[in-house]
């Protein structure tokens, strides 16, 4: 098991280098604009552009630039400076992280709790009105992109432009340290919008998985033993949950992608919006920093899910 974890961590680091390279290549090859030109003012003089390129290190060869970046990141844990605001990328991300963490954790809780419970009830009341209604809603939510859903709920429920003025609208986010109640209410809509798609996917998965396990022989055995139906269902859920755990890690990636959109729609100053803004400003070092952070998070989540899977299923042993 230890050997397995070490191997997975090494693979994770290799993967991060590959992600770095891909972002690097994408940014240089696809014409997002020359950062030096964007910074040289309205009527850029060629010598000014050259000077800026020299300062930013853009005049060196691509492999040298890449190597310089990697050296800084992996040996000094330095992620460079924003071309745009001259601030350290690490500082920028640190400033923005609490908002994204607040958003992601709340959404993940709603996603898992709502997804699993709706799925379980639907499976047990198969073909009932509840089942059809919730599975129909789930299908709509799976198909709805976050930016669309975000605008719809703002239009319906936000205090400023909503038809039913219930929740604070876009741009109302405050840090939890400043005002916990305001923090909570301002995040209710974003949480639901971000969680909706994943919760819907999980509800459908859980329903299918539980329907399958409730037909297993061991459920018949549990009933034959005279267990209460509650306990029988618990055994079914225990059997159904394992395949879902693997997908948990995959879905976290989707959640982080969604965070970029939700933060943008609701104007939440998080890492997602930082990523979005830095792409617009061709702020390469910041983009690279946010992408690395997200990749690292997904790699860790996958590792945790795989270890959790071995813990949940005694038949799985990594060697």
């Amino acid at each position, binding site marked *: 098991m230890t050997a397995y974890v070490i191997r997975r961590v090494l693979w994770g680091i290799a993967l991060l280098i590959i992600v770095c390279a891909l972002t690097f290549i994408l940014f240089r090859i696809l014409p997002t604009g020359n950062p030096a030109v964007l910074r040289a003012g309205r009527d850029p003089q060629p010598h000014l552009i050259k000077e800026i390129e020299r300062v930013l290190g853009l005049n060196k060869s691509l492999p040298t630039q890449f190597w310089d970046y990697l050296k800084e990141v992996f040996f000094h844990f330095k992620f460079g400076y924003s071309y745009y605001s001259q601030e350290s990328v690490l500082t920028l991300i640190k400033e923005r992280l609490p908002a994204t963490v607040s958003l992601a954790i709340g959404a993940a809780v709603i996603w898992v709790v709502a997804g699993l419970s709706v799925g379980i009830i639907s499976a047990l009341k198969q073909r009932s009105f509840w089942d059809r209604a919730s599975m129909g809603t789930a299908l709509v939510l799976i198909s709805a992109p976050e930016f669309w859903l975000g605008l719809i709920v703002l239009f319906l429920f936000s205090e400023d432009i909503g038809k039913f003025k219930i929740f604070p609208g876009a741009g109302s986010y405050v840090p939890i340290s400043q005002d916990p109640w305001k923090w909570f209410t301002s995040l209710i809509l974003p949480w639901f919008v971000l969680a909706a798609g994943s919760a819907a996917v999980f509800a459908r998965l859980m329903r299918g998985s539980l329907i399958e396990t409730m037909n297993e*022989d061991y459920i018949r*055995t549990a009933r*034959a033993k005279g267990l209460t139906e509650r306990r029988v269902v618990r055994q079914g859920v225990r059997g159904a949950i394992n395949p879902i755990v693997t997908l948990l890690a995959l879905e976290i990636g989707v959640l982080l992608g969604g965070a970029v959109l939700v933060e943008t729609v609701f104007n939440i100053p998080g890492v997602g919006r930082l990523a979005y803004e830095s792409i617009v400003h061709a702020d390469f070092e910041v983009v690279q920093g946010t992408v690395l952070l997200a990749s690292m998070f997904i790699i860790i989540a996958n590792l945790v899910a795989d270890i959790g899977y071995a813990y949940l299923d005694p038949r799985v042993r990594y060697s």
Partner: protein
Amino acid sequence: MSDPAQPLLRAENLRVEFPGEDGVVHAVDGITYQVFPGKTLGIVGESGSGKTVSSLTTLGLTRIQGANVSGRILFEGRDLVALPDSELRTIRGNDIAMIFQDPLSALHPLYSVGKQLTEAMRAHRDISKRQAQERAIELLGLVGIPDPKRRVDAYPHEYSGGMRQRAMIAMALANEPKLLIADEPTTALDVTVQAQILALMERLQDELGMAIIIITHDLGVVAEMADDIAVMYAGRIVETASAEALFANPEHPYTWGLLKSIPRLEADRSELLVPIPGTPPSLISPPSGCHFHPRCAYAQPDHSRIDPQLEPVPDDPGHFVACLLEPEARRRLWAELQEGRRPQEAISEVGLGGEAG
């Protein structure tokens, strides 16, 4: 204690139907059987003959799947068919326990064997986790699992097939049931392990005095275990008798077919096996008249119209058969088959139905 002369369990005119998209499946079609305290009843038939469904119905487990059940199942004076599920649950796994064909799929893969054992006990008795754990170890030892103290915490996939079935049996015995229903308990096991499991069940029956209903397609198993045998075909009992009587003087052509399809070690190698032709009928629209007539070598034209009833065999008390052939003709046919003749030869020998053949 229960009176040995009174049946412990008696099913009367039991019918189980599953409404389905293609029509109603008549899985069990009005059967009557009984098992006495401490005795063993063998229910024999092909897959799809309704033998498993009838026993699942005893525990109320077909009801959950949406089956329509009618008739009565009397157990210690109570009708299990009419009992509400909450009361039936106190009988399930407590007075009546069941073991299944494939112990790997019948055990929960994610719970340790010990946990599944203690759970069975704690569902019916108010005992502490520790007591239950100690009893689980004791039970595993009783069913012959080596080193039960260590094995109690193992998971089903860490057991061999035979050990899993032993663990299933231990689980069924946890609450000292009065009746054990064993549904094809040896089918998924190697032959040598099969014999061990049957021997174990016999030993436990002697020690604990429980009645057993053993469901199987294997006449060898019932020959070994059963006091009485019921042969089922297409949801009905076609013949029932004591084990000796059934093997000595089988009356139903289907029973003959079952007996003649078993290879015998001591038989001459030139002696051919005589399989029953065809496949078991659809239970949605079973054949008219005698359900067996399309596969019966001795069927007469009117057998597709008349429904045979389970009737006593003359001069053999306790032996019942549902066959439209004359008793005399049946005896002579079986005698011919015993001589090693093929069904067609036996028919012309006996001169069945005038110009049969």
